[in-house]
């Protein structure tokens, strides 16, 4: 109730701002903005999380301004925090498997579980997500997830060929298989291909050896290693016909744009990336950040996350999913977020075909990264 009046008044405010704004748009940046007392919230996140489509409405309603710094990969995120004074980042969007390390390094504040809708989760795993809790203390709030599998150009590969990681080795794809330039998802997929299933991160020396061999045998197929932008372009313009290490989070955006690409979870299983919010240790704006996280966990916020322009992620709350089906049935259908639909992400988890992305258990991250450099150079 309170909420709706608030948003309404925002609409008025917004209209006024737009009207007046037109005239002063050019001068404004130089004289400082009219609402100069705006609080700034520093955000460390993957690309897109601090863009207007995600935070714009919250910014207007609460007179805050997000200042995002974008990273690529959990290692990169840790490095950025380590190089900044404590308290630099108020909110950190982390991949779930790195929360534990954020916590161990004392970079994040504990959260109060009562602040968040844990009774409304779509899957029970989400309530006690690995690494997010230390005993009974919550350190990170799960926001969204996405599944990684075989991403391919539908004109170059059939859905059947894509239904196994073996598809990457298709002779016609030589030089046309791209890698997302991060070792965890790609090597995880190779581990799945080797049949390690749920133990994909927990590799004995022999299994690790085998994963390296499998990976190396893919090398002749590989046409390049790309960051987010490169992956996008590569798939879009046909430079790459299949991509290892990604999923719907990239092909989904291209699909929305009409490109002939798709992602499937192959029979060996898929990997889930999970993105969670943490409050930076030493942040003076913890209360504001808390209300932002609450907002993103509300149905409205969950819908924003599902529709995020940079890359989509599925809803984790029941109310969020229900609202998505109501307000954007097209996106709900595209991303299979309908009960009973084939490849419904939650159903895939229930069927045991999805494994949460994690860090290597028996080797160190460094070993994996070392091998990755070697692989790129081979």
């Amino acid at each position, binding site marked *: 109730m309170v909420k709706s009046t608030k948003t309404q008044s925002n609409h008025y405010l917004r209209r006024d701002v737009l009207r007046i704004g037109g005239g002063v748009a050019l001068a404004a940046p130089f004289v400082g903005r009219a609402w100069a007392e705006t609080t700034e919230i520093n955000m460390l996140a993957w690309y897109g999380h601090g863009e207007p489509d995600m935070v714009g409405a919250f910014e207007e309603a609460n007179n805050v301004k997000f200042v995002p710094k974008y990273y*690529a*990969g959990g*290692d*990169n995120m*840790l*490095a950025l925090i*380590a190089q900044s004074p404590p308290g630099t980042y108020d909110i950190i969007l982390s991949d779930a498997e790195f929360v534990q*390390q954020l916590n*161990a*390094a004392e970079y994040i504040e504990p959260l109060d579980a009562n602040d968040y809708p844990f009774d409304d989760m779509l899957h029970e795993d989400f309530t006690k997500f690995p690494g997010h809790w230390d005993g009974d203390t919550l350190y990170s709030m799960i926001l969204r997830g996405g599944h990684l599998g075989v991403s391919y150009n539908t004109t170059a590969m059939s859905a059947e060929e894509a239904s196994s990681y073996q598809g990457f080795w298709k002779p016609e794809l030589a*030089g046309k298989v*791209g890698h997302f*330039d991060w*070792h965890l998802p790609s090597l995880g997929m190779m581990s799945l291909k080797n049949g390690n299933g749920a133990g994909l991160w927990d590799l004995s020396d022999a299994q690790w050896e085998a994963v390296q061999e499998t990976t190396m045998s893919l090398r002749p197929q*590989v*046409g*390049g*290693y*790309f*960051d987010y932008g*490169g992956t996008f*372009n590569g798939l879009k*313009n*046909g*430079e790459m016909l299949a991509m290892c290490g990604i999923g719907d989070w990239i092909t989904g955006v291209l699909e929305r744009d009409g490109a002939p690409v798709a992602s499937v979870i192959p029979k060996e299983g898929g990997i889930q990336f999970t993105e969670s919010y943490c409050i930076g240790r030493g942040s003076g704006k913890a209360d504001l950040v808390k209300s932002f996280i609450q907002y993103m966990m509300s149905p409205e916020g969950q819908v924003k996350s599902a529709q995020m322009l940079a890359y989509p992620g599925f809803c984790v709350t029941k109310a969020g999913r229900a609202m998505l089906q109501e307000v954007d049935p097209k996106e709900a259908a595209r991303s299979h977020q309908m009960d009973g639909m084939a490849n419904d992400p939650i159903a895939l988890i229930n069927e045991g075909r999805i494994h949460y992305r994690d860090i290597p258990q028996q080797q*160190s*991250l*460094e070993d994996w*990264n*070392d091998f*990755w*450099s*070697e692989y*790129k*150079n081979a």
Partner: protein
Amino acid sequence: MSAPRRLNLYALTWRLPIILWQLMFFVGPVLFMVAISFFVVRNYRMTEAFEFVNWEKMLTRGYFWDSYWYTLFIASLSASVAMLVAFPAAWALAFRASDNLRRWAVFLLVIPFFTSYLVRTFSWYVILAESGVLNAMLGYIGLGPFKMLNTHFGTVVGYLTLTLPLAVILQTVTMANIDKTLIEAARNLGCKPLATIWRVVLPLSRTGFIVAALFCFILAFGDFVAPFYLGGSQEPTLPILILDTTKSGQQWPRAAVVAIMMMLTLFTVAFTAIALAYRKPAGSR
């Protein structure tokens, strides 16, 4: 202040600030990086230490040396290509163009330095793609499509974007400064045009040419944009290796090792080049 020979306040005013400034913000960082290469990383945190593990680890890695030789090779290659491709154009501008035309040409060649290199690279991406502009044009005359992105070719095109304008400018300026009477004298003595280039123009422009080549090499050697976006990181060059290393588990000390190796290489190349450039000609003609 009145005695001009002593090192006085006036002289110090011009000399001292820059020494302090450069010590603080140039020598400081570089030396600190050397120190970092001996630090160790524990639990994602850099800890001060004096250990050789990083050096040992990097220098015994096959992939480091693969990257090293590849970077050396591709940077030398692109510097040579830039120099060769630039030469006829520079020769034409230096000897066949009017002063006015030459001034305009040099001015135009300066322009690229003031456009965003990233934006230019991104343009190349679109031009070189398999479904891109160049292949579309080649398609009209029945050729292609050629795979140009994510190849060595792509990388070299990227480097040339950076180095070719510089090579043309430096070569043009160098050759334009040659005393024209020397060339005429050679002609009058019956020297053929190509022989004139070889025996008169090149020796006289040696310094300028070596400096130009050196700059091309330095720019290509240290650039990560071209090999990453146009070469698809295969194989990764040293700058890409540096980025990869900093991305992985906070391994700044190892990245520092790579950086120091790069600097040592560059200094060696630069000193050799400069020595060659300013060496007295062996024997006179």
